[in-house]
């Protein structure tokens, strides 16, 4: 088959495929067929053109001289003269030039102010969660409060402060460790657990992904984003990966009705670190 026949066959196939595409679309559409027919259409046109170019268009190499890129000295000199002719008239009014420059800088500065409207001043919001007032029940996603006994051994559930379900900074993991596991409370947090139930912020201290993987057998929490690993039995201390800080712990207690409550806010700001986190 000659290249000419090949190329025109390509164009013909492209036409048929375009027709097919129209039919497929008109019949209700089918993604795979649409993609393939589109590919055949454009591929046919592309192949046809390339075959045409390779076989029937002038293929001989031509040579072209490269002109020097830089301008000639005369041109540069002429430009310099013309520019300086104008420049002297500007220079002669030095004060005017200085004040105009100042005004332009001020203009640029003034334009920066509207940027401030883009967001609020970062403040205590980064360091506090809705748990802060204390004695707030922890509730499940459906708003249901929990008694300690309702969480089975090896169990884990995500909870929020009551009235703030889905608050992005306060998802909390309630974990009930195994009887056989040697839970060692952090010094000063001996009364932060209730009946083997411990609560940590679900947000990784690395870049804030929800630390969702609880390995019950070994008491480890693993972050699926960057594999930071925290030991639940030792105050959620980081044992592997890029996270450098423990998951903040929530001081738990039970209220008069036997439901789990937070005594106060987390042991530290939740989620990723920032410059003045500890100030």
């Amino acid at each position: 088959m000659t290249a000419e026949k090949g190329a025109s066959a390509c164009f013909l196939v492209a036409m048929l495929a375009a027709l097919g595409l129209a039919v497929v679309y008109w019949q209700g559409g089918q993604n795979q067929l649409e993609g393939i027919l589109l590919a055949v259409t454009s591929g046919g046109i592309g192949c046809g053109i390339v075959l045409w170019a390779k076989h029937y268009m002038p293929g001989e190499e031509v040579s072209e001289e490269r002109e020097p890129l830089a301008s000639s000295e005369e041109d540069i000199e002429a430009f310099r003269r013309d520019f300086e002719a104008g420049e002297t008239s500007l220079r002669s009014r030095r004060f005017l030039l200085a004040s105009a420059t100042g005004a332009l800088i001020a203009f640029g500065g003034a334009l920066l102010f509207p940027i401030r409207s883009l967001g609020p001043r970062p403040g205590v919001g980064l360091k506090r969660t809705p748990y802060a007032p204390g004695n707030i029940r922890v509730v499940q996603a459906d708003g249901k409060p929990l008694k300690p006994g309702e969480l089975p051994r090896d169990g884990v559930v995500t909870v929020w402060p009551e009235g703030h379900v889905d608050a992005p900074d306060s998802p909390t993991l309630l974990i009930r460790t195994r009887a056989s596991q040697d839970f060692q409370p952090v010094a000063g947090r001996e009364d932060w657990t209730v009946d083997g139930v411990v609560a940590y912020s679900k947000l990784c201290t690395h870049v804030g992904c929800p630390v969702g993987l609880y390995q019950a057998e070994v008491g480890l929490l693993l972050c699926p984003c960057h594999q930071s690993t925290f030991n639940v039995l030792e105050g959620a201390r980081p044992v592997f990966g890029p996270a450098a800080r423990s998951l903040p712990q929530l001081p738990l207690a039970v209220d008069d009705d036997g439901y789990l409550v937070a005594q106060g806010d987390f042991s530290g700001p939740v989620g990723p670190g920032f410059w003045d986190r500890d100030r």
Partner: protein
Amino acid sequence: MRVRGRLLAIAAVGITTAVATPFAASAQQQPDQQVIDKGARLYATGCSSCHGSDGGGVEIKDGGAGGPSLQHAGAAGAYFYLSTGRMPAASSTEEPKRKEPAYTPEEIDALVQYVASLGDGPELPRLDPANADLAEGGEVYRANCQACHSASGSGGALSYGRAAPALGSATPEQIAAAVRVGPGQMPVFGPDTLSKKDLNNLVRYVRYLDNPEDPGGLPIGRTGPIPEGFVAWMVGMVAFIGLVLWIGTRAPIPSRKPKEEQP
């Protein structure tokens, strides 16, 4: 990988129909002492060396045989481990893997009833597929399961060599049992944090994930950027390079002449 996954799935479907039907029937009956006795005999020969003659467990010493107590395993625990072939395990120290069940469905039924009689473990959850809501199941799945098993149900790595298995080959009964039992590294989801209705919906979604709609074409794992990047380079970029090789010239480049050498 895909082919093997398919085969496993087909094998699993075969097993389910064989296993689940008699079990589902017996679950509704009162415990039958004859069946429990049969289970006890099977237990004594097949399980007691690791789990103890009374199901109280045997401590693992120096790599010897040993295993946990079964007093809280319940029907769900026994059913999950036996029907997925994870028990009996070849080794006491390695994480048990899914394989062909060692017992017949009747034997599993007997063992399950025997283990259930040992203590207060979870019952096998009753499922009602006809009334399961797929979308609500998806919400339960994403809230509780995808962190380990991945959004597509293809499983995922845990720390220190452990892994959450792919869910494709799990039967509805096995999924439900696993949720209540928390086998291996998996946490336990009790009825107070994941209701019966949630569980029923969840099972439907997990089964759906085994063969979901793929309107976009070949699913390439449904796990996102890694297989996509692989296809982009290995199919797309290879095709691109092939095209420019075809269109552009490939004349060998002669060596540079010494007189034009640059420092």
